[in-house]
């Protein structure tokens, strides 16, 4: 089984941060430096993924229930991801923007699962 998420659960990659047009102000004033801000926007727009790692203590049935509750996945899909974690050591549960990814990982940690946020490479 592939460690990649199913196409239906991958958020459409976002276009890189919008670069603002150069100022039309006269050259005597000087164009504002926006390079730093633009880089930050680009970082935010990079897709992130929520990865759950294998843990020999958590029960398989418990992990399945957590995936159903946190991601709203139907049982068979939750079980598929649980088995991927169990057999391959990790499974990508979700991909998208940083903020929801952080919220998902927070919820997973609340259920005591080993979960991390990773940048999509």
């Amino acid at each position, binding site marked *: 089984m592939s460690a990649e998420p199913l196409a239906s659960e991958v958020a459409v990659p976002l276009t890189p941060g919008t670069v603002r047009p150069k100022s039309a102000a006269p050259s005597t004033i000087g164009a504002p430096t926006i390079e730093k801000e633009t880089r930050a926007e680009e970082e935010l727009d990079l897709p992130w993924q929520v990865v759950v790692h294998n843990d*020999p*203590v958590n029960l398989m*049935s*418990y992990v399945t229930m957590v995936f159903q509750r946190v991601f709203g996945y139907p049982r068979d899909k939750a079980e598929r991801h649980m088995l991927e974690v169990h057999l391959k050591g990790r499974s990508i549960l979700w991909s998208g923007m940083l903020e929801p990814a*952080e919220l998902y990982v*927070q919820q997973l*940690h*609340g*259920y005591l699962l080993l979960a991390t*946020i990773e940048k999509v490479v």
Partner: protein
Amino acid sequence: MEIRRRKNQIEISELDPFLAELLRQIPASANTQGAPAAEQRIFSAPANGKESKLCAEWKMYVEPELRRLFQTATQTVNADLEQLNGNEKSLANRTLRIPTKHADAWLSALNQARLVIAAKNNFTELELNEHFRSPIGSRRDLSLFQVNFYGFLQEFILRELDSD
């Protein structure tokens, strides 16, 4: 020991003093104090080391919330376990009734306890899979039995939640 669902309660009856004591130890077993490995497992990093800013913010803002969440669960379980207190030295079997609305708190507390015990004892995956290893000959064996016993309770609670 018998475990069954009775309306809005999960009833664990015929609890012998040994198993009753193991149940009483759930909140204490979930405590990570003085065990860095357990602390590290319960409050695991949200990202790898490269995301140092994210990890630092997590420690500052998210970890205290998680700590409160886990503490609330163990407090609920502790309150339910009050039923087992009194006449601790008696050899009579006990009955524990867990309201089904406390099921999530029990799942959390049992999970916390299992993870903390496993981290403190550094159990291998092989050991954790030896569900029926016996007899209990050492403190380590007892801890492994505790992990499995709590796991059995978790399985039962999960099954009951599933049937709702």
